[in-house]
């Protein structure tokens, strides 16, 4: 049932951002006002707006969810995403501001004025923005369902319409202030959530503040006779026995109700451990834990500590603790947390997902390896390195981030706003570790969708915090999608229609073209958001980072640091970067799994393409530049330096 407070807060936030858009509409009459907020945003506001732009649904929902289920591996995303800002600050910020006007294509093309660069950079902007838009729109649908009780597609359409309104009314000015407000709210309420978590402390039997009784999972003795499991309780009978990924499961039937149990042979006596299950029948009907799925019968939320610093048993709790103590207790070798694993298989015509608890030592949780195979084969380790490289190099190549450098008046302001962004984003990413571990140990992890871990952690503290966090999460989507749509609209109207196609007559025409482009891109985003329902949010964002780092970063870096770079080298590098990164992903094990094929059969063994596609793009720019005639236009400073004796 939909609660009133979440709806009220949601409506308030949406009304507020729309009011801002209409208020600033008069400032978006010129193309400078529309695409770059007139270049008059204060650096401190721009810095927080950077945070609002950057901290997308993947950061807030995805990282917290991944930490809640895979521990430290989720935090690696936080580290990589933040480290990327170093590249933005030290390499990209000031030069891009000095050379550009509305889009990053301007800066890339500043030394060449070449149509090929304009075309390729605009295509790259559109590709990266669309890849980034899909998970944001999917995230909107995921949020709206529990918040407002609306179907997924309604959430996607709602976000699309609101964002098109924000962008089409006042362009970059309204987008900036929406992102500023969202960035501020996100950080403030994340701090509130962490403080509340620390006051509550850790418990081996978390009950969500007394609202939800802690669920203890049963263990039943059993024997094995003639290879068949025989439960000690005679009311159960074993109907099936199978092994999935080295885990032995048994299907038990009691009074017609079916349940799946994990066979535990770790001690001398055999025992059966209760699991949770979700069975999808051939006709699409779903059965949860042996009964038809309904509002009252859903997968139970999970996650608790089994042992806290050597103290086991029900009711062990710490009371209020500091945030670092919380991290050290969860990661203590003498602590243990029940993490939940999923096994997928078919049972006749039914598709079955079985979720079982696995007590995991704290020291194992608080180091890499639960999700990333850092102890696996050399190829699996290379895959991890590839991801970390893409995260490091991707940020400074994201078009919707780069255009924010044109909203401030000077290169100095661009630098300062990047430093504010590092402070704000860094603070938030530190908080993700506390929030993720809080969700992991508070019995709030949704087995079917870990993206909701942070909002569900907030719900364990009451409706108000849940409502605020959910409304902010929705605003998070609005802020990021606005930035992406304006970047894409700039690529279409400014880069392609004006500077490449020479189709724009005057300034007013250019603003109109931008608004029409925003409508078109927004409509495409809505359709993609509906089509890609259920797609992993973090995966798609990782894809966008890899494409951006492969397509854009080599050309930006070489244009700035290698004077032999030619326009054809840049165009070729962007093209190769896009094709290589997307091509490698399409033939990766992850995509093969999505196609329903055997992942091991994928011709490309890497899930993350950056380690191949980024060097390939660098190599392309060097080779093509050396093979083509230099066409770089020297600027006044370079000419003066050349003339001096």
């Amino acid at each position, binding site marked *: 049932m939909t609660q009133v407070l979440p709806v009220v807060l949601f409506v308030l936030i949406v009304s507020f951002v729309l009011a801002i858009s209409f208020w600033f509409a008069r400032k978006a009459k010129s*193309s400078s006002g529309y695409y770059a907020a007139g270049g008059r945003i204060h650096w401190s506001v721009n810095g927080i707006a950077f945070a609002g732009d950057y901290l997308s649904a993947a950061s807030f929902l995805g990282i917290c969810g991944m930490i809640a289920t895979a521990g430290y591996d989720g935090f690696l995303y936080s580290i990589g995403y933040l480290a990327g800002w170093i590249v933005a600050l030290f390499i990209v910020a*000031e030069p891009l501001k000095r*050379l550009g006007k509305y889009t990053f294509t301007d800066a890339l093309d*500043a030394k060449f004025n070449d149509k090929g660069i304009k075309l390729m950079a605009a295509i790259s902007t559109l590709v990266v923005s669309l890849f980034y838009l899909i998970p944001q729109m999917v995230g909107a649908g995921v949020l709206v369902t529990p918040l407002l009780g609306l179907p997924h597609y309604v959430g996607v359409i709602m976000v699309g319409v609101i964002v098109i309104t924000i962008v089409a009314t006042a362009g970059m000015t309204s987008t900036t202030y929406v992102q500023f407000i969202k960035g501020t709210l996100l950080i403030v309420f994340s701090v509130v959530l962490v403080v509340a978590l620390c006051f509550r402390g850790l418990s081996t039997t978390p009950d969500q503040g007394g609202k939800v009784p802690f669920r203890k999972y049963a263990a039943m003795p059993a024997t094995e006779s003639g290879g068949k499991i025989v439960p000690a309780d005679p009311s159960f009978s074993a109907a099936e026995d199978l092994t999935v990924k080295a885990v032995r499961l048994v299907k038990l039937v009691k009074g017609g109700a079916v349940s799946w149990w994990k066979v535990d042979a770790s001690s001398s006596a055999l025992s059966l451990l209760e699991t949770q299950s979700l069975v999808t029948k051939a006709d699409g009907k779903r059965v949860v834990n042996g009964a038809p799925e309904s509002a009252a019968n859903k997968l139970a939320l999970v996650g608790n500590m089994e042992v806290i610093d050597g103290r086991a048993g029900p009711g062990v709790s710490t009371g209020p603790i500091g945030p670092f103590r919380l991290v050290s207790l969860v990661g203590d070798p003498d602590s243990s947390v029940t993490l939940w694993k999923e096994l997928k298989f078919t049972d006749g015509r039914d598709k079955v997902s079985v979720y079982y608890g696995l007590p995991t030592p704290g020291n194992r949780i608080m180091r*890499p390896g639960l999700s990333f195979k850092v102890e696996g084969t050399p190829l699996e380790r290379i895959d991890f390195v590839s991801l970390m490289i893409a995260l490091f190099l991707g940020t400074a190549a994201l078009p919707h981030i780069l255009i924010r450098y044109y909203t401030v008046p000077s*290169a100095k302001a661009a630098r300062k706003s990047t*430093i504010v962004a590092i402070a704000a984003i*860094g603070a938030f990413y530190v908080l993700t570790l506390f929030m993720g571990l809080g969700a992991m140990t508070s019995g709030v992890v949704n087995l079917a969708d870990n993206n909701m871990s942070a909002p569900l952690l907030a719900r364990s503290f009451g409706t108000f915090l849940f409502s605020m966090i959910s409304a902010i999460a929705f605003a998070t989507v609005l802020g990021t999608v606005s930035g992406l749509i304006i970047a894409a609209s700039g690529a279409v109207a400014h880069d392609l229609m004006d500077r490449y196609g020479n189709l*724009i007559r005057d300034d007013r025409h250019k603003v109109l073209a931008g608004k029409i482009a925003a409508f078109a891109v927004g409509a495409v985003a809505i359709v993609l958001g509906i089509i890609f329902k259920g797609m992993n949010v973090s995966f798609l964002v990782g894809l966008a980072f890899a494409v951006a780092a492969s397509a854009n970063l080599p050309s930006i870096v070489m244009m700035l640091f290698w004077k032999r770079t030619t326009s054809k080298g840049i165009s070729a590098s962007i093209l190769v970067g896009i094709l290589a990164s997307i091509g490698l992903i399409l033939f990766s094990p992850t995509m093969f799994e999505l196609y329903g094929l055997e992942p091991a059969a994928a011709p490309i063994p890497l899930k993350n393409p950056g380690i191949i596609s980024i060097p390939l793009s660098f190599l392309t720019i060097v080779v093509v530049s050396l093979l083509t005639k230099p066409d770089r236009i020297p600027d006044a400073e370079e000419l003066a330096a050349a003339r001096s004796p």
Partner: protein
Amino acid sequence: MLHEPAAQAEKDPAFPYKKRIGVALFTVYALIYAAFIAINVIDPKAMETVLPGGLNLAVVYGFGLIIFALLLALVYNRICGVREKALETTGGA
């Protein structure tokens, strides 16, 4: 017709100096980041090492990378600011 050349670069005599400093600081951070990745893939168990204060190496290194990024950013801003001010006063490069 708005097919004008891209925006003209604003004059910034401190730019070459700032570029050099930026590259130097970037190199420092990139090496520390690379060392972090190297430990993760070569000896991930080393990340379990509990340091004084109760946090393990993984957490301290991770937080350290975030905090060090901010510290380097502030140092960079200070160095750039001093240079810009000096050049504004003298009017040279």
